[in-house]
């Protein structure tokens, strides 16, 4: 396909007087892994639902696979895969029948579904659970089955809404590994997340959303370079410290400073030198930590709030 896979101009979603998405623009190219990063309530899910043609837009332009969701919903949906935020597997069917029936929803012939279902269960490492019901599966297994299900129609783009929220670290890493494989095989990935490590790991490019708007756009690296210094010195505060006082005191050490409840972040291009200077100023050296700047910092600087509030 030439041109963008998904394209939005001044896209708006309203529920009554509540504005969930307030005029956003973005373009997603074929084969790209694109992320919407932002806290809960930023408008990420509403955006995904509009792309997935299960929620009509209130205003603005939206093209998905070159088509208009308002007119070509079923056609677009037949070429997308969707992994929703909350698992919605068919609890009355087995793992295998979940794939068979879902394939039938796409009107695929049974022989084709059987072949793909076998491969997909292999891919998500659930072959040994094919005759199990859905309920006894662990959270990670349900997620993996949902991903297998979303691939049954060989989608051109895969929409993943908070794909690893609520999973333990091991399950997350297994899932990331599978998604990375998909990305390498050329599937366009569109995902939302409020985990900055997930966004850094998986996304070629992302937008940061806050309060229904896009506040920044770029590759994870570019966003950091553009908005943050190279390194961050974290100064952990004693339990009785007054953040405002400490922020004022630490101000002169960095290009920029952010106070959180339990620590102060000092943005600097030379972390070690700044950390030494801070320690020399009387801060306990054990509570001073140097790290590389992350997307979390980008979000904090752009919105004044932490991502996982």
């Amino acid at each position, binding site marked *: 396909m030439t041109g963008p896979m998904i394209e939005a101009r001044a896209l708006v979603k309203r529920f009554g007087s509540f504005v969930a998405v307030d005029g956003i623009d973005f373009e997603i190219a074929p084969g790209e892994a694109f992320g919407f990063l932002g806290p809960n309530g930023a408008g990420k899910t509403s955006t995904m639902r509009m792309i997935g043609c*299960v929620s009509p837009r209130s205003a603005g332009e939206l093209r998905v696979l070159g088509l208009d969701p308002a007119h070509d*919903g*079923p056609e677009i949906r037949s070429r997308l895969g969707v992994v*929703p935020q909350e698992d*919605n597997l*068919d609890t009355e069917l087995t793992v295998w029948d979940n794939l068979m029936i879902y394939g*039938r929803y796409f*009107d695929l012939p049974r022989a084709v579904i059987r072949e793909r279902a076998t491969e997909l269960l292999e891919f998500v490492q659930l072959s040994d659970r094919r005759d199990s019901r859905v309920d006894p599966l662990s959270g990670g297994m349900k997620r993996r089955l949902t991903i297998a*299900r979303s691939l049954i129609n060989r989608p051109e783009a895969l929409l993943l809404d908070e794909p690893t929220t609520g999973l333990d670290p091991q399950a997350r890493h297994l899932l990331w590994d599978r998604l990375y494989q998909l990305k390498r095989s050329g599937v366009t990935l569109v995902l939302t997340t409020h985990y900055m490590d997930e966004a850094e790991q998986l996304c070629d490019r992302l937008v940061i959303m806050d309060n229904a708007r896009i506040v920044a756009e770029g590759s994870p690296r570019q966003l950091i370079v553009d908005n943050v210094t190279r390194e961050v010195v974290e100064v952990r505060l004693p339990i009785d410290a007054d953040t405002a006082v400490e922020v004022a005191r630490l101000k002169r050490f960095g290009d920029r400073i952010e106070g959180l409840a339990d620590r102060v972040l000092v943005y600097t291009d030379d972390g070690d030198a700044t950390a030494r200077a801070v320690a020399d100023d009387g801060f306990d050296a054990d509570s001073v930590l140097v790290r590389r700047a992350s997307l979390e910092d980008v979000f904090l600087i752009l919105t004044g709030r932490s991502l996982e509030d």
Partner: protein
Amino acid sequence: MSTPTLFRVVEREALVYARLWRGLAFSTFVQPALYLAAMGVGLGGLVRAHSGAVDGLTYLDFVAPGLLVASAMQLAAGESMWPVLGMAKWSKQFHGVVATPIGPGDLFGGYVLWTAIRSMLGAAAFVIVAALLGAIPSMWGVLAIPAAGLCSAAFCALITAYSIRVDSDLSFPLIMRLGVLPLFLFSGTFFPISQLPHGLRPLAAFSPLWHGVELARAATTGRFDAAAIAAHIAVLVGCTAVGAFFGVRNFSRRLSS
């Protein structure tokens, strides 16, 4: 070959049913046998001893089509409440369906169609048992099966259109007790509506079940009046259409807004 997406929904329901078939088959045949034995033979014997016939029919012949369609209504009502709320709210699997080419309207239509089919499977079992007990005097009796299916579709469409809107099952027992049960008892099922107090008789016309029972009774007894049949069918089709109008709208609101 591409077939209407509606049938994909029916296929899913049929698969679930097929997996449970053995357990359901027993009750499908045993329930009508118990009902007919108790009401038709037991109570029917009493009726014969006291008044001979009911509307010129033996009580067994009178009550069999009533029970047949009333069972279809009960099945439709049950299937239209808890399972619908469950799939919309608890398992959220309806949301999974509408993410595919199947739209909310197809999902609603497929669900109603399946419920009608399932009611007809039950009605077929009922007709077989009733025929064995000699409760189906006319060869037209097989047409009681589509009559039950149509009545089931009407109830399923109307109740499902409601169930998709609610967020809890609190109102469902009320619908059963204040809606389904009175209809079950007073729709010409167990006694002719001519037995109702004068002022209440016209109310029966508002009961979709009464129309379904009259259709089935016309079929099983072979005594019918074409105009009345047409009117009963029109009412049931009308109820289904009203349910479908609100059902399609409410499914869209709940699942794709």
